């Protein structure tokens, strides 16, 4: 240690470092006690071996996982197709609802009514209604493939939600932007296309992703139509072996997809907050 006087800056830095180290130590200790204690408490109970065998059986996992994974591939494909369809239709509905041309009035009315309608009906009911209802009509030229009908049902249901997200995005763009776009001589349609929509979409990316995480889980609803996707496979396995491990295996597959999406969403929202703060600081 040198004898010469230490600067205020160094004293502060040292104090900060000391307190940081102390905080970390406390956090680590607390985590070990709470979580370690919890695990110890659960695994030493009398019933634990039964729980382990029923939900976390390695054998049952090994037996069922390949089939579940194959089933999950159907979920993924369905998700990707429905996702794209929902984006297209909901954007169309949102833009349509913000138009003012009198000739488009019936379309505005239809999209407003159907949005309110389908947001109110449980998705599972829509899937059931379309998946079983349409084949029952036995109309020529109408698809009977349950996967196609499931995709239609999910698209209808989710378009209702997502179009509202886009509409909120369009409303969130400051009216002065539209004024400025018109003032430079753009038409209403051009103002929408080049000025309002790009900002609207950017503003609603977080809630959009949120709805997609929902959709990614809700594709499992199509199992009611007898489509053998991950959840259905797991259900069949569980029912025949009285072991619930396959269900957890299926659950983990959904989680593997949704968790990265959520983390990505969190990061984006954080960045967005940072950018907004920066913008405000500039004003």
């Amino acid at each position, binding site marked *: 240690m040198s004898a010469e006087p230490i600067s205020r800056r160094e004293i502060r830095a040292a104090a900060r470092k000391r307190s940081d180290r102390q905080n970390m130590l406390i956090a680590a200790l607390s985590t070990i006690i709470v979580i370690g204690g919890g695990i110890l408490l659960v695994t030493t109970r009398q019933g634990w071996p039964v729980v382990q065998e029923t939900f976390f059986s390695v054998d049952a996992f090994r037996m069922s996982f390949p089939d579940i994974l194959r089933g999950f591939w159907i979920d993924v494909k369905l998700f990707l197709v429905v996702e794209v369809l929902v984006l297209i239709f909901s954007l169309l509905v949102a833009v349509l609802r913000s138009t003012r041309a009198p000739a488009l009035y019936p379309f505005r009315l239809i999209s407003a009514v159907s949005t309110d309608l389908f947001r109110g009906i449980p998705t599972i009911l829509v899937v059931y209604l379309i998946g079983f209802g349409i084949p029952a009509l036995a109309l020529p030229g109408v698809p009977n493939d349950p996967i196609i009908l499931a995709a239609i049902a999910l698209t209808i249901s989710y378009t209702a939600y997502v179009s509202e997200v886009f509409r909120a995005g369009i409303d969130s763009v400051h009216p002065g932007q539209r004024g400025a776009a018109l*003032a*430079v*001589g753009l038409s209403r349609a051009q103002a929408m296309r080049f000025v309002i929509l790009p900002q609207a979409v950017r503003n609603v990316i977080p809630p959009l992703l949120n709805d997609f995480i929902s959709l990614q889980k809700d594709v499992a609803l199509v199992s009611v139509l007898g489509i053998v996707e991950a959840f259905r496979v797991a259900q069949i396995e569980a029912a025949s072996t009285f072991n619930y491990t396959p269900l957890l295996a299926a659950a983990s597959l959904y989680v593997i997809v949704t968790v990265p999406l959520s983390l990505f969403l969190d990061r984006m929202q954080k960045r967005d907050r940072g950018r907004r703060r920066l913008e405000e600081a500039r004003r």
Partner: protein
Amino acid sequence: MSVPVLEIQGVTKAFDGKPVLQGIDLKVEEHTAVVMIGASGSGKSSLLRCINLLVDIDDGDILLDGEVVTDPAVDPQRVRRSLAMVFQHFNLFPHMRVLDQITLAPVKAHGIPKDEAVEEARALLARFGLADRERDYPDQLSGGQQQRVALIRAIATRPRALLRDEITSALDPELVGEVLEVVRELKVGGMTMLIATHEMAFARDVADEVCFLHQGRVVERGTGRQMIESPQEPETQKFLARMLATRAV
């Protein structure tokens, strides 16, 4: 005498029954700058928005080069293409780079080939000292730079007249000088302008005519010097006394 570029004849406008414009008469001759002064809410901004057909007027008429543009049969987009507007808060498009924001209207609304529009935009950027800023987004620019981009965006369409709605809160002194300089430059270039402002220096130094608006009427008009230094109407005197008490001219 030639036909004025802009002529406002007895224009009235009420919002929700509250009168904002109560019979405004005003003319802007070619290559001149007319400046409107008056307290917030006196109708300056509303008049500019009416001229640009962003707001429908109730009574009276607005003429552009002798044509009545407030006739319901007139296509507003055609009128707006020959006018330009700089908004109080600039209303720049936050998602577009400076160059794209300037070329958007010339390319999409005026059908000018992209190369030509870019070339012209670059020339304007250079003229206003923003040559190295064409790839920036608006939030990367200072207030003064944003204002110049808004101005370039407006004049890039080669308008018959430029409408300017100056910010109502005090500009920082450096910015006042900058704006004055830019407007002088535009005047030299022969631009026809109608400007709403709170900067008296501005009114005195660049205006060919100054109009004092009070409660939606033109109460007094005259040359810049005459209006700022020896106003006749008591309302004008009161307004100027208040303005001069709070800021140096």
